[in-house]
């Protein structure tokens, strides 16, 4: 039971950390390069522990992110719900991809996420974003292996310690 609790802590902690990373202020020049951390972490958990995740959870995380981010209530909820759905759908295939293919898949997912965001923004009446808007998914793709390995490593170590 203890092990289960630890895993829950890692799960919740990584999601909270991703929200913090999303909020973390960056210099103006670096801001466009900030990957969409909550999406990366959610993808990981959907791939590795689908029993903990669901579209509903993604929706809730998105609502929390919206509350913190303060852009538009429901925007990130929508994006994360869609993302989670897609990953759940292709989970069994994605899991066994080699890392570079997985990273490419993450790039596609994040691009799709950006397109959703763009649609929402356009519907809300915002101006068209600059070209740097599309940089974030690329950085997300580059960051994916590290996120994956980092969380995996933490989980493995804790598991080993308890065993």
């Amino acid at each position, binding site marked *: 039971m203890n092990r289960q609790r630890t895993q829950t802590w890692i799960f919740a902690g990584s999601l909270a950390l991703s929200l913090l990373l999303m909020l973390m202020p960056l210099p103006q020049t670096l801001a466009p390069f900030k990957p969409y951390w909550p999406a990366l972490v959610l993808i990981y958990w959907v791939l590795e522990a689908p029993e903990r995740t669901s579209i509903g959870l993604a929706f809730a995380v998105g609502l929390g992110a919206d509350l913190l981010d*303060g852009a538009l209530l429901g925007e990130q909820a929508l994006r994360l719900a869609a993302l989670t759905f897609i990953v759940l*759908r292709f989970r069994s295939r994605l899991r066994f991809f080699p890392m570079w293919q997985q990273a490419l898949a993450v790039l596609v997912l994040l691009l799709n996420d950006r397109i959703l965001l763009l649609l929402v923004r356009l519907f809300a009446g915002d101006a068209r974003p600059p070209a740097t808007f599309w940089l974030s998914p690329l950085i997300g793709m580059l960051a994916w292996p590290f996120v994956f390995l980092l969380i995996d490593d933490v989980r493995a170590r804790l598991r080993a310690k308890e065993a």
Partner: protein
Amino acid sequence: MALPRKESSPIFADAAAGTLRLIGYLALACVLMVLDHRNGWLYRARYVASAAIEPVYRIAAWPAQTAQNLAVAFTERAGLIADNNRLRETLLLAQARLNRMGAVAEQNARLKQLLDTRRMLGMDVQLARLIDVDLGAARNRAMLDVGAADGVHVGQVVIDAHGVMGQIVETLPHTSIALLVTDPNHAVPVVDERSGLRGIAHGSGAPDRLLVSDIPLSADVKPGDHISTSGLGGRFPAGFPVGTITAISPDPSGLFAQAIAQPAAALARSGEVLLLRDQPEPVGPPGPAPPVGPPDSLANSPPADVSVQRPHPSPPRHTDEGDKSAVTHR
């Protein structure tokens, strides 16, 4: 690893149920967005939850803050010194600029004063700038930045906002030299504004002293009296302040008194001066003296003086006075 599976294998997950759920959530999100867009729910929710949200922001900003603090803490000493030097230089530059601004403001005030003088005079004047002032014991001269090319000629009177400064004694094409009232070789016919007593103020060589000599011992002159040009001699127009009497003492012979006066013009300070343009050359004696001082009946001066103060159409007297008031060295 063994995952506890409640439902069917995800490989063959019932797509329809998942899609339905997704559609439900997407619809919910859309409704939320529209409502939020219309009603500003998010703002209100954030307002309510601010107690929880604000610390999150603090935490999120903490790494950047720490990095900044560390950068400040570990900035090299050399960098700090360079920074300091640069700032000091900037400060110096700003200070200098500020001082210059102050000087410009002062100059502005002086010029305004001069302009006022000019308007008050109702005379044709020319503005000139002092290039060089020589306030030695033997010579009290000033060089002006206007010369013959600007229409300056020998004999023009130089004044500033406070009083008579002197007269032009030499002109060059673009500069001219003025003999100041305090030059030992300069004399100007003056009148005591209070008593109407006439006299001649010589320069003493010191830039803050004029000598009014040959005053009768019984004459009514007191320290504090203002003396101004009398207009006699025709060179200096009447009524310009020349100085203030500061002391009176018997002269070496003991037969006359001599007074020491402080020049009215700011000889050591003025930067800009006015040159009076040609006065119509007096053919006869100067016009009636301005009504300065007490009436003649009260004047405590000899009858001769009284008669001189009135217009007197005798040319010889004028030339006599003119000789006395002219620049003695020329």
